[in-house]
Protein backbone atom coordinates (compact mmCIF):
# COMPACT_ATOMS: atom_id res chain seq x y z
CA UNK A 1 0.00 0.00 0.00
CA UNK A 2 1.36 3.40 -0.85
CA UNK A 3 1.28 6.19 1.65
CA UNK A 4 -1.47 7.87 -0.32
CA UNK A 5 -3.52 4.68 -0.34
CA UNK A 6 -3.04 4.30 3.40
CA UNK A 7 -4.27 7.79 4.04
CA UNK A 8 -7.29 7.38 1.84
CA UNK A 9 -8.27 3.84 2.87
CA UNK A 10 -7.41 3.89 6.56
CA UNK A 11 -6.66 7.47 7.50
CA UNK A 12 -9.97 8.82 6.22
CA UNK A 13 -12.22 6.32 8.02
CA UNK A 14 -10.27 6.83 11.22
CA UNK A 15 -10.67 10.56 10.76
CA UNK A 16 -14.42 10.15 10.28
CA UNK A 17 -14.69 8.18 13.50
CA UNK A 18 -12.65 10.74 15.36
CA UNK A 19 -14.79 13.59 14.04
CA UNK A 20 -18.02 11.81 14.92
CA UNK A 21 -16.87 11.04 18.45
CA UNK A 22 -17.85 14.43 19.94
CA UNK A 23 -21.47 14.19 18.80
CA UNK A 24 -21.67 10.54 19.84
CA UNK A 25 -20.44 11.51 23.30
CA UNK A 26 -22.98 14.33 23.44
CA UNK A 27 -25.85 11.99 22.64
CA UNK A 28 -24.58 9.44 25.14
CA UNK A 29 -24.21 12.09 27.84
CA UNK A 30 -27.67 13.38 27.00
CA UNK A 31 -29.22 10.01 27.74
CA UNK A 32 -27.14 9.23 30.81
CA UNK A 33 -27.28 12.55 32.63
CA UNK A 34 -23.74 13.44 31.70
CA UNK A 35 -24.69 16.90 30.50
CA UNK A 36 -24.70 19.79 32.92
CA UNK A 37 -27.79 21.09 34.70
CA UNK A 38 -28.15 23.44 31.75
CA UNK A 39 -27.94 20.86 28.96
CA UNK A 40 -28.80 23.29 26.17
CA UNK A 41 -25.94 25.53 27.20
CA UNK A 42 -23.68 22.49 27.52
CA UNK A 43 -24.49 21.24 24.01
CA UNK A 44 -24.14 24.75 22.60
CA UNK A 45 -20.66 25.06 24.07
CA UNK A 46 -19.56 21.58 23.04
CA UNK A 47 -20.73 21.92 19.43
CA UNK A 48 -19.25 25.40 19.16
CA UNK A 49 -15.89 24.45 20.59
CA UNK A 50 -15.72 21.35 18.37
CA UNK A 51 -16.56 23.42 15.30
CA UNK A 52 -13.82 25.91 16.07
CA UNK A 53 -11.26 23.23 16.88
CA UNK A 54 -12.02 21.38 13.64
CA UNK A 55 -11.80 24.60 11.68
CA UNK A 56 -8.34 25.24 13.09
CA UNK A 57 -7.30 21.64 12.40
CA UNK A 58 -8.54 22.06 8.83
CA UNK A 59 -6.35 25.12 8.51
CA UNK A 60 -3.47 23.09 9.88
CA UNK A 61 -3.58 20.43 7.17
CA UNK A 62 -1.71 22.36 4.50
CA UNK A 63 1.14 23.52 6.74
CA UNK A 64 1.55 19.98 8.09
CA UNK A 65 1.42 18.62 4.55
CA UNK A 66 4.24 20.94 3.55
CA UNK A 67 6.40 20.26 6.60
CA UNK A 68 6.08 16.50 6.26
CA UNK A 69 6.09 16.55 2.47
CA UNK A 70 3.20 14.06 2.58
CA UNK A 71 1.10 15.47 -0.23
CA UNK A 72 -1.57 12.82 0.27
CA UNK A 73 -2.59 14.44 3.56
CA UNK A 74 -4.58 16.91 1.52
CA UNK A 75 -7.22 14.21 1.21
CA UNK A 76 -8.05 14.78 4.87
CA UNK A 77 -8.76 18.46 4.50
CA UNK A 78 -12.18 18.22 2.92
CA UNK A 79 -13.71 15.85 5.48
CA UNK A 80 -12.23 17.96 8.28
CA UNK A 81 -13.66 21.15 6.80
CA UNK A 82 -17.05 19.57 6.26
CA UNK A 83 -17.13 18.27 9.82
CA UNK A 84 -16.31 21.76 11.06
CA UNK A 85 -19.32 22.96 9.07
CA UNK A 86 -21.38 20.07 10.46
CA UNK A 87 -20.65 21.04 14.04
CA UNK A 88 -21.14 24.72 13.25
CA UNK A 89 -24.56 23.86 11.87
CA UNK A 90 -25.38 21.72 14.91
CA UNK A 91 -24.30 24.64 17.09
CA UNK A 92 -26.61 27.02 15.27
CA UNK A 93 -29.49 24.53 15.24
CA UNK A 94 -29.08 24.02 19.00
CA UNK A 95 -29.45 27.76 19.40
CA UNK A 96 -32.36 27.97 16.97
CA UNK A 97 -34.35 24.97 18.13
CA UNK A 98 -33.38 24.19 21.70
CA UNK A 99 -32.37 27.58 23.03
CA UNK A 100 -34.77 29.89 21.24
CA UNK A 101 -37.31 27.31 20.04
CA UNK A 102 -37.98 29.12 16.78
CA UNK A 103 -38.61 32.48 18.44
CA UNK A 104 -37.79 34.29 15.20
CA UNK A 105 -38.21 37.77 16.63
CA UNK A 106 -35.68 37.12 19.37
CA UNK A 107 -33.37 35.34 16.94
CA UNK A 108 -33.32 38.18 14.43
CA UNK A 109 -32.83 40.66 17.24
CA UNK A 110 -29.94 38.61 18.56
CA UNK A 111 -28.24 38.37 15.17
CA UNK A 112 -28.64 42.07 14.55
CA UNK A 113 -28.05 43.55 17.99
CA UNK A 114 -25.60 41.26 19.75
CA UNK A 115 -22.17 41.61 18.11
CA UNK A 116 -20.97 38.25 19.32
CA UNK A 117 -23.94 36.57 17.63
CA UNK A 118 -23.62 38.72 14.51
CA UNK A 119 -20.02 37.67 14.08
CA UNK A 120 -20.75 34.04 14.91
CA UNK A 121 -23.66 33.80 12.51
CA UNK A 122 -21.55 35.42 9.80
CA UNK A 123 -18.74 32.94 10.44
CA UNK A 124 -21.18 30.09 9.87
CA UNK A 125 -22.78 31.62 6.78
CA UNK A 126 -19.31 32.06 5.25
CA UNK A 127 -18.81 28.31 5.49
CA UNK A 128 -21.91 27.53 3.42
CA UNK A 129 -20.44 28.32 -0.03
CA UNK A 130 -17.30 26.48 1.03
CA UNK A 131 -19.26 23.37 1.99
CA UNK A 132 -21.27 23.49 -1.23
CA UNK A 133 -18.19 23.88 -3.44
CA UNK A 134 -16.10 21.33 -1.56
CA UNK A 135 -16.40 18.65 -4.26
CA UNK A 136 -14.06 17.81 -7.12
CA UNK A 137 -16.83 18.76 -9.52
CA UNK A 138 -16.86 22.27 -8.19
CA UNK A 139 -13.09 22.59 -8.30
CA UNK A 140 -13.36 21.76 -11.99
CA UNK A 141 -16.25 24.13 -12.56
CA UNK A 142 -14.56 27.04 -10.88
CA UNK A 143 -11.01 26.25 -11.82
CA UNK A 144 -8.25 25.98 -9.23
CA UNK A 145 -7.53 29.69 -9.08
CA UNK A 146 -11.12 30.84 -8.47
CA UNK A 147 -11.76 27.96 -6.12
CA UNK A 148 -8.74 28.86 -4.04
CA UNK A 149 -9.77 32.49 -3.92
CA UNK A 150 -13.29 31.59 -2.76
CA UNK A 151 -11.98 29.24 -0.12
CA UNK A 152 -9.86 31.93 1.42
CA UNK A 153 -13.14 32.83 3.14
CA UNK A 154 -12.27 30.11 5.62
CA UNK A 155 -9.80 32.49 7.27
CA UNK A 156 -12.54 35.05 7.78
CA UNK A 157 -14.80 32.38 9.16
CA UNK A 158 -12.19 31.13 11.62
CA UNK A 159 -11.47 34.68 12.76
CA UNK A 160 -15.20 35.23 13.21
CA UNK A 161 -15.43 32.07 15.27
CA UNK A 162 -12.63 33.16 17.57
CA UNK A 163 -14.17 36.61 18.04
CA UNK A 164 -17.56 35.03 18.71
CA UNK A 165 -16.01 32.95 21.48
CA UNK A 166 -14.00 35.85 22.89
CA UNK A 167 -17.02 38.14 23.00
CA UNK A 168 -19.31 35.73 24.79
CA UNK A 169 -17.18 34.73 27.78
CA UNK A 170 -17.76 36.70 30.96
CA UNK A 171 -14.21 36.92 32.22
CA UNK A 172 -12.29 33.74 31.42
CA UNK A 173 -10.68 34.64 28.10
CA UNK A 174 -8.04 31.94 28.29
CA UNK A 175 -9.54 29.48 25.78
CA UNK A 176 -10.56 32.04 23.14
CA UNK A 177 -7.13 33.65 23.35
CA UNK A 178 -5.41 30.28 22.87
CA UNK A 179 -7.55 29.65 19.79
CA UNK A 180 -6.74 33.14 18.56
CA UNK A 181 -3.02 32.61 18.97
CA UNK A 182 -3.22 29.30 17.09
CA UNK A 183 -5.18 30.97 14.30
CA UNK A 184 -2.65 33.77 14.01
CA UNK A 185 0.13 31.19 13.84
CA UNK A 186 -1.66 29.30 11.07
CA UNK A 187 -2.22 32.52 9.14
CA UNK A 188 1.43 33.43 9.58
CA UNK A 189 2.49 30.25 7.76
CA UNK A 190 0.43 31.38 4.77
CA UNK A 191 1.92 34.85 4.71
CA UNK A 192 5.40 33.40 5.01
CA UNK A 193 4.68 31.11 2.07
CA UNK A 194 3.21 33.88 -0.03
CA UNK A 195 6.28 36.08 0.33
CA UNK A 196 8.50 33.10 -0.48
CA UNK A 197 6.52 32.24 -3.60
CA UNK A 198 6.73 35.71 -5.13
CA UNK A 199 10.34 34.97 -6.17
CA UNK A 200 9.70 32.28 -8.76
CA UNK A 201 7.59 29.25 -9.64
CA UNK A 202 9.75 26.81 -11.63
CA UNK A 203 7.90 24.63 -14.20
CA UNK A 204 8.44 21.31 -12.36
CA UNK A 205 6.76 22.58 -9.21
CA UNK A 206 3.48 23.42 -10.89
CA UNK A 207 0.77 21.17 -9.44
CA UNK A 208 0.04 18.00 -11.40
CA UNK A 209 -3.51 17.26 -10.22
CA UNK A 210 -6.66 19.31 -9.78
CA UNK A 211 -6.83 18.62 -6.10
CA UNK A 212 -3.20 19.47 -5.56
CA UNK A 213 -3.82 22.76 -7.35
CA UNK A 214 -6.75 23.42 -5.11
CA UNK A 215 -4.64 22.40 -2.15
CA UNK A 216 -1.82 24.75 -2.91
CA UNK A 217 -2.99 27.38 -0.45
Amino acid at each position, binding site marked *: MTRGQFIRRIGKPVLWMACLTPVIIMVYD*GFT*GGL*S*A*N*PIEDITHRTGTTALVLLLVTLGVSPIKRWTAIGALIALRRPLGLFAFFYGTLHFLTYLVLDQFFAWGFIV*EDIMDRPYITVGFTALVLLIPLAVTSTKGWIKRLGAKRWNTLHRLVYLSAAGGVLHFLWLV*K*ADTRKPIVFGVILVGLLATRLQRRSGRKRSVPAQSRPATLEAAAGSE
Partner: protein
Amino acid sequence: MLIKRASDIKASEITPEHLYLSRRRFIGGTAALGVVATARVSAPWAFGDSTDARVESGRQDDEKLTSFDDVTTYNNFYEFGTGKGDPARNAHTLVPNPWSVTVEGECHKPGEYDLDDLLRGITTEERIYRLRCVEAWSMVIPWEGFSLNRLLPRFEPSSNARFVEFTTLYAPEQMPGQGRNVLEWPYVEGLRMDEAMHPLAIFATGLYGRPLPNQNGAPFRLVVPWKYGFKSIKSIVRIRFTASQPRNSWNIAAPREYGFYSNVNPEVDHPRWSQARERRIGQFFKRRTLMFNGYADEVAHLYEGMDLRVNF
Protein backbone atom coordinates in the same frame (compact mmCIF):
# COMPACT_ATOMS: atom_id res chain seq x y z
CA MET B 1 -47.93 34.84 54.16
CA LEU B 2 -46.55 32.18 56.39
CA ILE B 3 -43.16 31.39 57.72
CA LYS B 4 -42.71 27.73 57.14
CA ARG B 5 -41.57 26.03 60.29
CA ALA B 6 -40.90 22.32 60.09
CA SER B 7 -44.22 21.41 61.64
CA ASP B 8 -46.11 23.62 59.20
CA ILE B 9 -44.91 21.91 56.08
CA LYS B 10 -47.44 19.50 54.68
CA ALA B 11 -46.17 16.16 53.49
CA SER B 12 -47.29 17.02 49.98
CA GLU B 13 -44.96 19.99 49.89
CA ILE B 14 -41.80 18.17 50.83
CA THR B 15 -39.60 17.69 47.84
CA PRO B 16 -39.71 14.03 46.85
CA GLU B 17 -36.35 12.31 47.23
CA HIS B 18 -36.24 11.49 43.54
CA LEU B 19 -36.47 15.17 42.68
CA TYR B 20 -33.47 16.25 44.62
CA LEU B 21 -31.45 13.13 44.18
CA SER B 22 -32.35 12.72 40.53
CA ARG B 23 -29.88 13.10 37.74
CA ARG B 24 -30.85 15.21 34.81
CA ARG B 25 -32.52 13.20 32.09
CA PHE B 26 -32.37 15.78 29.35
CA ILE B 27 -33.61 13.72 26.44
CA GLY B 28 -36.35 12.23 28.59
CA GLY B 29 -37.40 15.68 29.70
CA THR B 30 -37.65 17.13 26.23
CA ALA B 31 -39.36 14.05 24.82
CA ALA B 32 -42.46 15.77 26.13
CA LEU B 33 -41.75 18.82 24.03
CA GLY B 34 -44.53 21.28 24.41
CA VAL B 35 -45.33 20.30 27.95
CA VAL B 36 -44.29 23.08 30.22
CA ALA B 37 -43.16 22.42 33.75
CA THR B 38 -45.17 20.35 36.13
CA ALA B 39 -48.48 19.94 37.87
CA ARG B 40 -46.79 19.69 41.24
CA VAL B 41 -47.57 22.53 43.56
CA SER B 42 -44.51 24.32 44.81
CA ALA B 43 -44.15 25.39 48.39
CA PRO B 44 -45.41 28.91 48.95
CA TRP B 45 -42.91 31.71 49.03
CA ALA B 46 -41.87 31.95 52.61
CA PHE B 47 -39.87 34.73 54.09
CA GLY B 48 -40.07 37.51 56.57
CA ASP B 49 -38.81 38.38 59.95
CA SER B 50 -40.05 35.99 62.57
CA THR B 51 -40.67 38.63 65.19
CA ASP B 52 -42.05 41.56 63.26
CA ALA B 53 -43.84 42.51 60.11
CA ARG B 54 -44.56 39.65 57.80
CA VAL B 55 -43.93 40.65 54.22
CA GLU B 56 -46.34 39.43 51.64
CA SER B 57 -45.14 37.91 48.43
CA GLY B 58 -46.97 36.78 45.35
CA ARG B 59 -46.65 33.19 44.31
CA GLN B 60 -45.98 32.18 40.75
CA ASP B 61 -47.51 29.10 39.19
CA ASP B 62 -45.41 26.30 37.82
CA GLU B 63 -42.34 27.18 39.84
CA LYS B 64 -40.92 24.10 41.42
CA LEU B 65 -37.74 23.65 43.39
CA THR B 66 -34.58 23.08 41.41
CA SER B 67 -33.22 19.63 42.20
CA PHE B 68 -30.55 19.31 44.86
CA ASP B 69 -28.34 17.68 42.25
CA ASP B 70 -28.61 20.67 39.92
CA VAL B 71 -28.24 23.22 42.72
CA THR B 72 -25.00 21.59 43.88
CA THR B 73 -23.37 20.73 40.53
CA TYR B 74 -24.06 23.84 38.44
CA ASN B 75 -22.30 26.73 40.09
CA ASN B 76 -20.39 29.91 39.37
CA PHE B 77 -17.67 29.98 42.00
CA TYR B 78 -14.56 31.01 40.13
CA GLU B 79 -12.43 30.43 43.22
CA PHE B 80 -12.70 26.78 42.24
CA GLY B 81 -12.53 27.14 38.46
CA THR B 82 -14.60 28.87 35.84
CA GLY B 83 -16.52 25.87 34.53
CA LYS B 84 -19.98 25.25 35.90
CA GLY B 85 -18.96 21.80 37.08
CA ASP B 86 -15.61 22.89 38.54
CA PRO B 87 -16.81 23.97 42.01
CA ALA B 88 -18.52 20.62 42.65
CA ARG B 89 -15.36 18.82 41.56
CA ASN B 90 -12.82 21.05 43.28
CA ALA B 91 -14.40 22.58 46.36
CA HIS B 92 -13.56 19.63 48.57
CA THR B 93 -10.33 21.43 49.53
CA LEU B 94 -12.25 24.20 51.27
CA VAL B 95 -12.17 23.95 55.06
CA PRO B 96 -15.44 25.51 56.28
CA ASN B 97 -14.92 24.62 59.92
CA PRO B 98 -13.59 26.32 62.00
CA TRP B 99 -14.58 29.63 60.44
CA SER B 100 -14.23 33.14 61.73
CA VAL B 101 -15.77 36.35 60.53
CA THR B 102 -14.06 39.69 61.03
CA VAL B 103 -16.37 42.64 61.58
CA GLU B 104 -14.96 46.11 61.14
CA GLY B 105 -15.63 49.63 59.98
CA GLU B 106 -18.30 52.06 61.07
CA CYS B 107 -19.62 50.12 64.05
CA HIS B 108 -19.24 49.94 67.80
CA LYS B 109 -18.71 46.23 68.20
CA PRO B 110 -16.02 45.27 65.69
CA GLY B 111 -13.96 42.15 66.20
CA GLU B 112 -13.11 38.68 65.04
CA TYR B 113 -15.95 36.30 65.78
CA ASP B 114 -16.10 32.56 65.55
CA LEU B 115 -18.98 31.66 63.28
CA ASP B 116 -20.50 29.21 65.75
CA ASP B 117 -20.57 31.97 68.38
CA LEU B 118 -22.14 34.39 65.92
CA LEU B 119 -24.90 31.96 65.01
CA ARG B 120 -25.63 30.81 68.53
CA GLY B 121 -29.15 31.75 69.49
CA ILE B 122 -30.29 32.41 65.94
CA THR B 123 -32.83 29.95 64.65
CA THR B 124 -32.61 29.48 60.92
CA GLU B 125 -35.69 29.07 58.82
CA GLU B 126 -36.38 27.82 55.33
CA ARG B 127 -36.45 30.57 52.72
CA ILE B 128 -37.40 29.44 49.24
CA TYR B 129 -36.04 32.00 46.81
CA ARG B 130 -35.51 32.42 43.13
CA LEU B 131 -31.88 32.96 42.20
CA ARG B 132 -31.32 34.72 38.87
CA CYS B 133 -27.84 34.66 37.42
CA VAL B 134 -26.72 37.55 35.26
CA GLU B 135 -26.00 34.93 32.58
CA ALA B 136 -29.81 34.50 32.20
CA TRP B 137 -30.39 31.21 33.95
CA SER B 138 -32.19 30.79 37.23
CA MET B 139 -33.09 28.37 39.98
CA VAL B 140 -35.50 28.03 42.87
CA ILE B 141 -33.60 27.13 46.01
CA PRO B 142 -34.81 26.25 49.51
CA TRP B 143 -32.19 28.01 51.60
CA GLU B 144 -31.74 27.63 55.35
CA GLY B 145 -30.97 31.03 56.77
CA PHE B 146 -32.03 34.17 58.58
CA SER B 147 -32.40 37.83 57.75
CA LEU B 148 -29.31 40.01 57.97
CA ASN B 149 -31.33 42.31 60.20
CA ARG B 150 -31.17 39.62 62.91
CA LEU B 151 -27.36 39.74 63.01
CA LEU B 152 -26.05 43.08 61.79
CA PRO B 153 -27.55 45.18 64.62
CA ARG B 154 -25.45 43.18 67.05
CA PHE B 155 -22.39 44.96 65.79
CA GLU B 156 -24.02 48.32 66.42
CA PRO B 157 -23.35 50.03 63.08
CA SER B 158 -22.93 53.76 63.58
CA SER B 159 -24.82 56.52 61.83
CA ASN B 160 -21.93 56.68 59.34
CA ALA B 161 -22.64 53.16 58.18
CA ARG B 162 -24.46 53.75 54.91
CA PHE B 163 -23.23 50.58 53.25
CA VAL B 164 -22.03 47.17 54.25
CA GLU B 165 -19.25 45.36 52.42
CA PHE B 166 -18.62 41.61 52.42
CA THR B 167 -15.44 39.75 51.54
CA THR B 168 -14.87 36.10 50.61
CA LEU B 169 -12.04 34.00 51.92
CA TYR B 170 -8.71 34.45 50.19
CA ALA B 171 -6.81 31.16 50.45
CA PRO B 172 -5.30 29.85 47.19
CA GLU B 173 -4.26 26.62 48.92
CA GLN B 174 -7.94 25.92 49.61
CA MET B 175 -9.33 27.68 46.54
CA PRO B 176 -7.17 26.69 43.56
CA GLY B 177 -8.98 29.04 41.18
CA GLN B 178 -7.47 31.96 43.08
CA GLY B 179 -4.12 31.06 41.57
CA ARG B 180 -5.30 32.84 38.42
CA ASN B 181 -6.49 36.42 38.40
CA VAL B 182 -9.58 35.77 36.31
CA LEU B 183 -11.15 38.09 38.88
CA GLU B 184 -9.36 40.24 41.40
CA TRP B 185 -9.20 38.27 44.65
CA PRO B 186 -10.59 38.23 47.25
CA TYR B 187 -14.15 38.50 45.98
CA VAL B 188 -15.99 41.49 47.41
CA GLU B 189 -19.59 42.61 47.35
CA GLY B 190 -21.73 45.20 49.07
CA LEU B 191 -25.20 46.42 49.83
CA ARG B 192 -26.73 49.72 50.79
CA MET B 193 -27.73 49.60 54.46
CA ASP B 194 -31.47 49.67 53.76
CA GLU B 195 -31.03 46.78 51.29
CA ALA B 196 -29.05 44.83 53.88
CA MET B 197 -31.66 45.44 56.57
CA HIS B 198 -34.54 44.39 54.34
CA PRO B 199 -36.09 41.14 55.64
CA LEU B 200 -35.67 39.50 52.27
CA ALA B 201 -31.86 39.63 52.43
CA ILE B 202 -30.53 36.60 54.28
CA PHE B 203 -27.40 34.94 55.46
CA ALA B 204 -27.69 31.30 54.43
CA THR B 205 -26.01 28.42 56.23
CA GLY B 206 -27.77 25.57 54.50
CA LEU B 207 -29.96 24.42 51.68
CA TYR B 208 -32.46 21.58 51.37
CA GLY B 209 -32.24 21.21 55.11
CA ARG B 210 -28.54 20.38 55.02
CA PRO B 211 -25.44 22.48 55.69
CA LEU B 212 -24.22 24.41 52.67
CA PRO B 213 -22.09 22.25 50.41
CA ASN B 214 -18.69 23.80 49.82
CA GLN B 215 -19.49 24.63 46.21
CA ASN B 216 -22.53 26.65 47.33
CA GLY B 217 -20.49 28.94 49.55
CA ALA B 218 -19.96 27.07 52.82
CA PRO B 219 -20.26 27.78 55.62
CA PHE B 220 -21.88 31.21 55.45
CA ARG B 221 -23.09 33.23 52.49
CA LEU B 222 -25.39 36.01 51.42
CA VAL B 223 -28.57 35.55 49.41
CA VAL B 224 -30.15 38.67 47.95
CA PRO B 225 -32.89 37.27 45.71
CA TRP B 226 -33.91 40.45 43.93
CA LYS B 227 -30.43 41.02 42.55
CA TYR B 228 -28.31 39.11 40.10
CA GLY B 229 -26.67 36.06 41.62
CA PHE B 230 -23.13 37.46 41.71
CA LYS B 231 -24.25 39.79 44.52
CA SER B 232 -24.96 36.76 46.70
CA ILE B 233 -21.39 36.47 47.89
CA LYS B 234 -20.21 33.13 49.21
CA SER B 235 -17.92 31.92 52.02
CA ILE B 236 -17.88 35.27 53.82
CA VAL B 237 -14.97 36.05 56.14
CA ARG B 238 -15.38 39.79 56.56
CA ILE B 239 -18.21 42.24 57.13
CA ARG B 240 -17.33 45.91 57.00
CA PHE B 241 -19.64 48.86 57.53
CA THR B 242 -18.67 51.77 55.30
CA ALA B 243 -19.69 55.34 54.69
CA SER B 244 -19.06 55.21 50.97
CA GLN B 245 -20.23 52.72 48.36
CA PRO B 246 -18.00 49.65 48.44
CA ARG B 247 -16.37 48.13 45.38
CA ASN B 248 -17.75 44.88 44.05
CA SER B 249 -15.75 42.33 42.12
CA TRP B 250 -17.72 42.07 38.89
CA ASN B 251 -17.90 45.83 38.64
CA ILE B 252 -14.13 45.92 39.01
CA ALA B 253 -13.75 43.29 36.30
CA ALA B 254 -16.13 44.92 33.79
CA PRO B 255 -17.56 48.24 34.93
CA ARG B 256 -19.66 48.72 31.80
CA GLU B 257 -21.34 45.36 32.26
CA TYR B 258 -21.87 44.89 35.99
CA GLY B 259 -22.94 47.62 38.33
CA PHE B 260 -23.26 47.95 42.07
CA TYR B 261 -27.02 47.68 42.43
CA SER B 262 -27.46 44.87 39.89
CA ASN B 263 -31.18 44.59 40.49
CA VAL B 264 -32.79 42.00 38.25
CA ASN B 265 -34.32 44.12 35.51
CA PRO B 266 -35.64 42.75 32.20
CA GLU B 267 -35.67 46.26 30.78
CA VAL B 268 -31.96 46.87 31.16
CA ASP B 269 -29.95 44.55 28.98
CA HIS B 270 -26.43 43.43 29.64
CA PRO B 271 -24.31 45.16 26.96
CA ARG B 272 -23.72 41.82 25.26
CA TRP B 273 -26.96 39.90 25.83
CA SER B 274 -30.60 40.42 26.66
CA GLN B 275 -31.96 40.20 30.20
CA ALA B 276 -35.58 39.94 29.13
CA ARG B 277 -35.78 36.17 29.44
CA GLU B 278 -34.11 33.41 31.40
CA ARG B 279 -33.68 29.67 31.38
CA ARG B 280 -35.05 28.08 34.55
CA ILE B 281 -32.71 25.16 35.19
CA GLY B 282 -34.62 21.93 34.74
CA GLN B 283 -37.14 23.43 32.34
CA PHE B 284 -37.07 23.60 28.57
CA PHE B 285 -38.88 26.78 27.62
CA LYS B 286 -37.44 30.10 28.61
CA ARG B 287 -39.50 32.33 30.81
CA ARG B 288 -39.86 36.07 31.02
CA THR B 289 -37.59 37.65 33.58
CA LEU B 290 -39.48 39.54 36.25
CA MET B 291 -38.67 42.98 37.56
CA PHE B 292 -36.64 42.55 40.76
CA ASN B 293 -36.83 38.81 40.11
CA GLY B 294 -40.48 38.81 41.13
CA TYR B 295 -39.91 40.61 44.42
CA ALA B 296 -40.96 44.05 43.19
CA ASP B 297 -43.76 44.36 45.73
CA GLU B 298 -41.28 43.96 48.53
CA VAL B 299 -38.27 45.93 47.34
CA ALA B 300 -39.24 48.37 44.59
CA HIS B 301 -39.74 51.12 47.15
CA LEU B 302 -36.04 51.01 47.99
CA TYR B 303 -35.31 52.42 44.54
CA GLU B 304 -37.99 55.05 44.17
CA GLY B 305 -36.69 57.96 42.16
CA MET B 306 -33.57 56.11 41.06
CA ASP B 307 -32.81 55.67 37.39
CA LEU B 308 -32.18 51.94 37.29
CA ARG B 309 -30.61 52.20 33.84
CA VAL B 310 -27.90 54.45 35.25
CA ASN B 311 -27.68 52.60 38.55
CA PHE B 312 -27.60 49.17 36.99
